[in-house]
Each structure stands twice: as C-alpha cells, then as structure tokens.
C-alpha cells in the first residue's frame, strides 16, 4: 500500500476545483506564450521583408506583453501547478515525476532557453539587426513549442497510457495514443490565443493609425485559419480516448458533456467570427470585441481542460492510480486490512465526533472521498446521498463502481464502510452531540456480501449492454 499523506480540508470547495482553477489559468497563459512565439516570428518576417511596415512596432509592443504576462504569471502558475498538484494528489504528481523525470528535466532545459532567448530579445532587440532579432525569436518559438511537446506527452499519458501499461518503457508512455491529436490541437489553440491577444494589443497601440491597425489585424488573423482543422483534431482525440471516458463526455456525465459543449460552442463562435469576419471580410475589431473573443477562448480552454481532467475518472492515471490515490492492485488488500490502518494522521477537531465509529467514518471519508467530494459543499456527499435510506447507502457505496462507473471501488473493510455511512448520516443530521454506534452484526454481514458481489475490479460502463444481450439470448 502507498504512503498516506496528510489531507487538507478546503471547506465548501473540493480540492479538484482548486487544481482545475490553477491549471486552467496556467494552460491559457502557457499556450498564449507558445502561440506568441510563432506569431512574433511571422510578424518579424513580414517586417523584414517589407510586407508590413508596422510589423516591427507590433513585435516590440507584443513582446512586452508577453514578458509581463507570460514570463511572470505563466512561469509562476507553472510552479503553482506543481504545488497545487502536491496539495490535491501527491501520489499522482509523484507518479508522473517518477516515471518521466528526465523528460521533465528536458522540458526544463527548453524553458531555460525560452527565458534566455526571450530576455535577450526583450532587452536588446531595439539595438539588433533584423536577422539577429529573427534568430532570437525563432529560438524562443522553438523552445516554447518544445516545452508544449514534452509536457503534452506526460499529460496525455495520464488518460491514455497505451502500451506503457505492458512495457513500462518511456517512449511507449510518451508517444501514447492521444499524444499527436492532443499536441496538434494544443498548437492550434496556442496560435488562436496568440492571435486574439494580438488583436487586443493592436488596439492598444497608440503610435499607428486605424489603417495600419487594420493591416496588422488582417495579418495576425491569418493565424486563426488553422482553426478549421480543430473539429477534425477533436474527433481524432475522441476516437483515441478510452471508450468509457468517451461515454462520459458524450452524455454519460452531464457535467462533462456540458463543459464539452461550452468548449465546442465557444470555439465555434470564435472560429466563425474569425474566419468570416477577420480573414474573409478583413474587418477591424475594436478592443471590446477582441477582449470578448479572448474571454470566449478562455471559456473554451477552461471547458476543454475540465473535460480532459474529468474524463480520466475513475483514474488519475489510467489503470495505475484511482482519483483517490489508491492503486487498483491495493483494493483487495485494503478490503482486508482497511484503508485507515496505515494512516498516521488523527482527525482535526477530533473532539466534535460523538463516537469512535463516526470518527473512523471521518477518516474513511478523508482517505477515499475528499479529493473529489466535500461533506456539505461542492459535490457534497450529504447532498448526493440525501435521497438514499441507510441500507441503500450501504449498498451503493459497497458497489460504488457499479453504482457509478466513474467512481472507484470502495477500498476498505465492512466496518469502515459502515463507519462512513454513519459519518454521512451524522453529517446530514447536522452533527448532533450524541450518536448511536451501529454494532448490528447482520448489517456488517450484509455489507460484506455486497462488497464480495461488487468485486475489486473497476466498474464496467457497458453493463447495460451486456445485460440486454443476456436477456436477448
């Protein structure tokens, strides 16, 4: 069994949401930096070859924005992601570091190159020749895209580890089934974000007139053209997703489908406006419109990242680690020895619990549920189980992976399960000072039977189909 780490309580906010918030902001900024590199090279080339006389001014102004936003917020939210991941799921980030630390170290090399080339350009470009500036920008663009390339392999491994599960070789894990669609999709997103941010920057330029701004905007909008292949890349990604994950995002989980639709809807709105208005009709858009499009792009990024994170359920690394940091191979043993046996941490506010059973239930909740659920806040267990009677609660938790196939199997003893049920009931009853312990052996025997029926394997989302086929037969 894995080590148990202390768990912090975020009140009404589930820890997964904290992770999502930091991750979405970082991904947005990091992809903006990647696309920014490509955009700047293009504009520098336009300026050098005389195709757009205002391009140089734009490059200087845009790079300042890149330094002030991406080099500061982007770099520090990157560190913030590591810190947050440790807070939310230390075993997940530990597993990613353990298996891919040399690729992560390689990514660090490119990050360093990005910073060095970026600052060289930022500090000296006004005193450098066009060719020298172009060299620095190309190095910056390549370095930032290589960062994306490397991180993309590690992140996509979580959802689709592919052949790595059998071979455990680095490249089988890195070049996993969703590597290429994910990389290409992210590259197009990066170009889109950079282009939309450029429209805002152009509007803020005070040294050029409206005609010059329009000419620049028409040029930066050319980076939006690759958006036409986004639907194809999205379908490619859906095709390589595990079948159960695909079923969650295509209707199996209303929340995930909703976020997917937000992402698709926002992308369609941006794509249609960009292609019809900016590219074909060569329109000028003002700061408000550009800002609104950028906000929509943020919404699309947020929706996409939420779906990417959520579709891994019940795993945080598919077939390796469940969302609650329990390994699939440990479930059987934990059914015997319990999930709290190696937990050295007492509960905070220990004195408020009315008896040892509820106290044990609190520890079981902390160990198995708290990463995705709160007690009474977001995704609160008292709300989710509110309509169940006590026996139904026992049954549904004992057969958790069959109750909801995106939930992991319960990994504990019958006594721990009963303790969890009592903890939920006690919390639902607004935590009275006195609470009767349930020691009825028939209840424990029934729970044991249900746990045995449920088995220790993850749930199968095609149970309905199987049952239907059996009935037909």
């Amino acid at each position, binding site marked *: 069994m894995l080590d148990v780490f202390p768990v912090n309580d975020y009140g009404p906010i589930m820890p997964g949401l904290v992770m999502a918030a930091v991750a979405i902001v970082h991904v947005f900024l990091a992809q903006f930096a990647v696309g920014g590199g490509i955009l700047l090279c293009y504009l520098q080339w336009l300026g050098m070859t005389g195709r757009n006389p205002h391009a140089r001014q734009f490059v200087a102004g845009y790079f300042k924005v890149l330094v002030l936003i991406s080099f500061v917020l982007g770099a520090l939210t990157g560190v913030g992601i590591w810190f947050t991941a440790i807070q939310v799921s230390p075993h997940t980030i530990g597993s990613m570091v353990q298996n891919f630390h040399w690729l*992560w170290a*390689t990514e660090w090399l490119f*990050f360093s*190159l990005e910073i060095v080339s970026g600052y060289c350009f930022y500090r000296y470009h006004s005193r450098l020749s066009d060719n020298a500036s172009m*060299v620095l920008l190309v190095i910056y663009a390549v370095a930032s895209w290589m960062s994306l390339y490397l991180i993309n392999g590690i992140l996509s491994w979580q959802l689709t580890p592919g052949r790595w599960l059998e071979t455990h070789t680095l490249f089988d894990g890195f070049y996993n089934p969703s590597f290429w669609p994910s990389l290409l999709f992210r590259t197009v997103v990066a170009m889109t974000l950079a282009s939309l941010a450029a429209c805002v920057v152009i509007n803020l330029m005070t040294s050029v007139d409206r005609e010059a701004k329009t000419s620049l905007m028409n040029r930066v909008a050319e980076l939006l053209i690759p958006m036409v292949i986004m639907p194809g890349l999205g379908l490619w990604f859906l095709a390589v997703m595990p079948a159960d994950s695909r079923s969650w995002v295509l209707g199996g989980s209303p929340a995930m489908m909703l976020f997917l639709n937000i992402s698709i809807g926002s992308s369609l709105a941006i794509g249609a406006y960009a292609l019809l208005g900016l590219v074909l009709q060569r329109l000028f858009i003002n700061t408000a419109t550009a800002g609104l499009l950028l906000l929509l792009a943020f919404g699309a990024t947020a929706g996409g990242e939420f779906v990417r994170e959520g579709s891994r359920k019940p795993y945080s690394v598919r077939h390796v680690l469940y969302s609650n940091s329990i390994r699939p191979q440990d479930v059987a043993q934990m059914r015997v020895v319990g999930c709290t046996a190696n937990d050295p941490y007492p509960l905070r506010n220990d004195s408020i619990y009315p008896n040892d059973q509820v106290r044990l239930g609190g520890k079981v909740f902390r160990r198995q549920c708290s990463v995705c659920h709160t007690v009474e806040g977001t995704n609160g267990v008292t709300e989710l189980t509110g309509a169940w009677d006590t026996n139904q609660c026992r049954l549904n938790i004992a057969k958790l992976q069959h109750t909801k196939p995106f939930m992991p199997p319960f990994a504990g003893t019958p006594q721990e399960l009963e303790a969890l049920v009592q903890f939920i009931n006690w919390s639902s009853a607004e935590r009275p000072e006195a609470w009767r312990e349930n020691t009825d052996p028939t209840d424990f025997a029934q729970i044991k039977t249900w746990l045995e029926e449920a088995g220790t394997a993850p749930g199968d989302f095609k149970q309905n189909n199987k049952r239907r086929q059996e009935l037909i037969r």
Partner: protein
Amino acid sequence: MNLPFPLGFPAPTAFYLTLYILTFALHQAFMHYVLAGSLYVAWTTSFPGRDSVSRNDQPIAATLRDWLPFLLSAAITAGVAPLLFIQIVYQKQFYTANLLLWWRWMLVVPILIIAFYLLYLLKSKIMAHWPHIARSLVAISTAACFVFVGFCWTANHLLSVSEARWPEVYVTGQLPFTPFEVLARMGIWISDSFATLAAILAWQLYRRQSDRSADIVGPATRNLAVMALGGLGLLTLAGLTYILTAADKTRDSLFDSGTLPYLIISVVGVAMQVAGWFQQWRFGRLTGLWSTVVSTGSVLTLLAMSFAREAIRAGVLDMPQLFQRHADAAKVGGFTVFLIFTVLVSAAIAWCFVTVHRGLKVQPPVA
C-alpha cells in the same frame, strides 16, 4: 560513513542527490542576487543619503533595479530543476512538509507574483515621480516578499526532517520549531546572499568600469567590499550560532567525516572572498584577477554549504528507507535524451549570447 557525502550512498541515491544539490546551488546563486539585491534597494530607496548623487542613483542600486526582474526570472527558472529532483530524492518528506504548511506554503506563488511586478515597478520611470514614502514602501514590500519566501522554504526544510511530529503538526497547525531555529538558518543564507550578490555585481560593474570616473568607481568598489565583508562576517556569526545551538544529532552530522570536507571548503571559500575584497578595497577599483578570486571563493562557499546542508539532512533522516525509490527512478529511461538536449540547448543558449554580442557591435536598424 567515511567517504565524503554523498559518495557513501548507493549510486542512484548519490547521483540524484548530486544533481539536486548542483541545481539547487545554481538556483541559490540567482536567488541570493534577488534577495540581497532587493534588501539593498529597499535600503537605498528608504535612505538615499545626503551626497550629490543619491545612493539610489549610484551604480550599484541602478544596476540592481535594472537587472532584478531578469534575475528573478532566472532564479525561478533555475528553481524548477531542484524542485523536480527533490521530488525524487525526498518525495515523502517534501510532499508532507508542503501539505502540513498548506496555505502558508501556497502563499509562496502569489507572493512571488506580487514581488515580480513590484520589481518591474521599481525599474520603471513611473516611480521617480512618486513621493519618497511611497517609493520606500514599494521597495520594502518587495524585499519583504522575498524574505517571506525564504522563511517558507526554511520552514519547509525544517518540517521535512521532523517526521515524528507530523501528526501533531497536522492536528494543531503549530510548527514544531522555534523562531530562533528558523532565524539561525535564515541568518546563514541571508548573510551569504550579500557576498554572492557582491561577487556577481563585481562583474556587472567591472564591465563598465572604464566608462566611469574614479570618483564613481572608488566608492562603488568600497561599497561592494563592505557589502561582501559584512555579509561574510554575519555568515560566520550565524554559522557559529547554528553550530552551538543545533541538536546533538545535527551537530554530529555536521562534524561527520562525510560533511567535514564541505565545512573546510566553505571556510576556504570565505577566506578567498575576504582576500579578494580586501585587495580590491586597497586598489579602489575592481580588477579581473581579484574578482575571479572572489567569484571562485563564492562558488566554493555556495556549493560546499549546499552539500553540507544535505549531508546534515541525510544524517537526520532514515536514508536507507529511500534507497529503493531512487533505484526505481534510476531504471526509468530518458537520461540519454536529457544529455543530448543538454548539449543542444546549451549550444542554443550560447548562440543567443553570441547573436546579441555580435549584434550590438553593428549599426542598429532603421526604425
């Protein structure tokens, strides 16, 4: 252990420890510049002096304000590597300390973001028109942010080696060490950061020394010498305090045959820096030779202190329990990829510098 740390450990453990320490030392060099630099700028901004040219406009403070944002960026970038390797070397200890510090630890990121923007504000021309009190407040706040981050890292380190008290810390939220223990450790790093800052600044000022008159170069050199010698003096005091007040087990680790060579090297490093600064004080200007002696001494001190820090930690922790994880990590592929890209990226970084160096010699482009 008879061999110098970490050679007495199994090869994977020694390898990852060495990588962690080397990258940590690199991060420290940049972080020292930022920490001591921001404290210096806070002082010159708050107390500009009565000379015709205020302290704040003299070469040291001006150079610092110009370069601090980039050096912070370098410190953060360089900090990613030790942050990666510490997760291999001391995963359980590091993660648990993070979790136990919780919001106090998570504050590090927003505080650094604020400090980053304050550095840009200090560099900008906007600040020149602000009243003295406002400028002082910005400069002091910036330095305070970095001191706070230093405190968080110190607390994290101390907590990571207090495994027996983790459950108690989890329940009570009380950190298991006294402010004195934190201050003694921070005293060592903060005082040495002034010596490191002076060593780096010496090269930045030396490069432009010929453009400046003797009445600017002389005081600047002496100011740097005071900064470095003062820092080294405080480092000696803080080091002695730490040794005298350390727990028995820690003190035993400190004078263990594995750690002692690093203590000796750090003393040699300090001596080289003292000699270098004394000579440059006498000359009233910076020289290439003595700046090299100072820099070599500074690097030796920084590296030796970093190795000694880890040797002491290893003496307190149950290291054999960690060996298997290190051995498993060593079996994971990708090291060759890392080596190949180390060469390629190093060449690309060199190309950036060459491009700028050559580019600055030719005529700037027409706007």
